[in-house]
């Protein structure tokens, strides 16, 4: 088997996907969005909790999807935790614009630019164009969630 395929299927992505440690729904979500890949039927729902100032406090997801999609959602959840822990965030929350920017950088990384910090493992997906959508599906759900406002 060629090295690209080996790298993909031996990458950390699959370990992350198997563990699925961050998969959970948020009981107190303020925003929810889901995305479906009509090609394969994979689905992911993303819950967000935004505070009164619009800052993102928590993210949960539930996926009926392939390992790459789950791994991407795991990386995203962990990224949020890291951001919250870092000095850049105000009172433990992250601005939605940062999330939009992240979605864009992940998209660009798949097309050949440098991966954003924390998403280096995605480099192994780059040669597999038919699988890019698997990685971006959680971000599509986030975008939809940000447009949604629970009443």
């Amino acid at each position, binding site marked *: 088997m*060629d090295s690209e*395929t080996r790298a993909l299927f031996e990458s950390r992505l699959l370990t992350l996907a198997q563990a699925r440690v961050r998969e959970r729904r948020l009981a107190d979500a303020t925003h929810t969005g889901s995305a479906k890949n*009509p090609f*394969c*039927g*994979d689905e992911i729902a993303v819950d967000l909790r935004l505070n009164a100032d619009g800052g993102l406090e928590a993210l949960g997801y539930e996926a009926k*999807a*392939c*390992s790459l999609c789950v791994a991407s959602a795991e990386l995203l959840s962990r990224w949020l935790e890291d951001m919250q822990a870092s000095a850049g965030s105000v009172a433990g929350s992250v601005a939605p614009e940062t999330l939009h920017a992240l979605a864009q950088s992940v998209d660009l990384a798949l097309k050949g630019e440098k991966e954003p910090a924390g998403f280096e493992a995605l480099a192994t997906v780059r040669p597999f164009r038919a*699988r890019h959508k698997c990685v971006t599906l959680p971000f599509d759900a986030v975008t939809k969630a940000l447009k949604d406002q629970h009443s």
Partner: protein
Amino acid sequence: MGYDVTAIRAQFPTLERKVYGDKPLIFLDSAASAQKPRAVTDAMTHFMDTTYSNVHRGIHALSQEATDAFEAARGKVAAFMNADEREVVFTKNTTEAINLVAQSWGRKNLRPGDEILVTELEHHANIVPWQLIAEATGARVRAVAVLDDGALDMDDFHAKLGPATKMVAVAYVSNVLGTVLPVQDIISAAHAQGALVLLDASQAVTHKRVDVKALNVDFLAWTGHKLYGPTGIGVLFGKFDLLDAMPPFLGGGDMIDTVSFDGSTFREPPYRFEAGTPAIVEAIGLGAAIDWVEAVGIENIAAHEADLLEYAMTELSGANDVTIFGTTPTKVSVLAFLLGEHHAHDVGTILDRTGVALRVGQHCAEPLHTRLGVHSTVRASFAAYNSREDVDGLLAGLSVCRELLG
């Protein structure tokens, strides 16, 4: 002489190519779209190089020759399924053919409370057009259940077929399970209730002889690109009297008798349904594809594919980690399966890198996958040009999947 698959393969230039550097292409995705023999591309090129012109509207020599060639292609299509030429409408594909019936026949004939019966195994192309017209007319779409082995639940069919049923629209052959439906029984029962029948024969014409007169079917739709022909050309068969009573689907040039600002009158079928310049070159290509299929013999192709299917089914069922979907005795060479618990896309990605091209996902049949309780499947399909070595390639690719996916 027996079936010479080597000689057949030699007529398909694409099959000679390699992928990912040095991997010979093993093309097992013909149910999505088949490769083209040189006879088809040659016929299209020759027509464009020598005879090309618009049809039905010119006084000059080329236009008349082009019209003759175009209408000769219609004649080949008609003969291929034992129809009359005036019952053959050229469309873009199956999808357009079914939409044509739904919009034209449906708009005229469906009333609130009427029912359109489809099945759980339909391609979206035979579900969504009916939903659209049902919404517009107040009719209702109902789906006949599928049994675990992929057969249609005929008890459920008879239970759902009733006086409210106005149209029974079903696949002749499932594009996922390969199941051949008992269409003769379906047609007789539907007619006894006064309902019409449309068969989606997209996956049937490629694997068996289809005879619209013997079937006594009302409408039958299929697409050229799966029958070794080009894309952009499909076929709607309709019984002449039914077509003749239907209003146009699209309006424009070629389909009219007279046009004035007081109103227009329309030509007889099939021209009433062929608005605008048709896919002329593609029709010529489809005619050549039919010539090619008839020269090899559809029955010979079917027997060869049945041998490949049996070989693949035997080998795959021997592996205890493979689940096959669709196991009825009436099954053509469309083989959906899953490898262990692995996601179809992971399997497809690895197979692709071994040179095996097949389809993964829901194959435009989401309700069927819901019914089967699976998310997606891997689908291998075998055509005239596939060999036992191709099946061996698939089996070897699956071993690589096992190694990498654990």
